[in-house]
């Protein structure tokens, strides 16, 4: 704060004199006792085991806990889900895969080429499907 000029010094002195009329006398212990009797502080939900947490901190911890529980639950469920595509190639008996007649400019894809990472149907169990071994699968060989 900058230095006070003459007017401000006069103002401060006049204000101090004026505010001498303020009701400044008090009995502190009396006020504290009356308030404590009339409005007792409630124990926190954790009782005396509040660990010094303020209500705001407790809410944040609760929220973080819920998010963690959600994350762990999601991971547990996600582990059990099939994460690889299952390709079922309709084939009639006796046919064998043949290369395309005119080579594709994107490569030599065959009719039964499965996407990368795909596991032939029957090589692993899948939710809602039966364990069927196809003749062309590795399990059948």
């Amino acid at each position, binding site marked *: 704060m900058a230095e006070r000029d003459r*007017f401000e010094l006069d103002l*401060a002195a*006049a204000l101090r*004199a004026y*505010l001498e009329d303020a*009701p*400044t006398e008090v009995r502190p212990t009396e006020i504290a006792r009356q308030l*404590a009797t009339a409005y007792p502080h409630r124990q926190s939900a954790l009782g005396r085991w509040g660990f010094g947490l303020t209500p705001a901190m407790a809410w944040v911890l609760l929220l973080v806990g819920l998010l963690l529980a959600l994350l762990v639950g999601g991971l547990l469920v996600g582990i059990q889900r099939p994460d690889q595509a299952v390709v079922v190639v309709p084939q009639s008996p006796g046919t064998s895969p043949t290369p395309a007649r005119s080579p594709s400019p994107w490569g030599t894809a065959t009719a039964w080429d499965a996407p990368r990472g795909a596991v032939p149907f029957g090589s692993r169990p899948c939710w809602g499907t039966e364990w069927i071994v196809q003749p062309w699968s590795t399990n059948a060989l």
Partner: protein
Amino acid sequence: MNGQAMGSRTVASIVALAGAGDEAAFAQLVAAHHADMARVAFAVCGDRELAEDAVQSSWLVAWRKLHSLRDPDRVRPWLLAVTANEARQLLRRRHGPVVEIDVEVPGDPHGDPSTGIERLDLRRALAHLSPDDRALVAMHYVIDLSSDELGVAIGASPSAARMRLSRIVDRLKKELRDG
């Protein structure tokens, strides 16, 4: 003991204990800050009884909400802001939406002759300010709050508090010099 006399570490522990409902710690806060709160309330209301009621209800607010004070070192401006708010509300309830104080002067109307500002003139000039401005003037010129603390008290930055104070002083200067 006043607010400044308590060491920072002591203030933190006293505020924490008082916020948790410790009677003795709360009594220490009352002893340290009651007089300043009464001055602010009186500056806002201009009436002893109203000021007394305002400080009483401020202590009730403090008793209930002290635990929510994040920075214990700011307890002084926080208590003064609570007091100014309570005083303003009491004044509004008493006088309706017009919250100017009476210019009736208790005691000596001339006040301290050494200041060059007469009590009646000061009271009249203060009556033309808003209750919040009266509180700000008292907090700065009588209680000697720093601009940081003024900012906390009015919920603004220290520079905003300084600017507001400067405008109020200009206005008071005009009122008191020009009549």
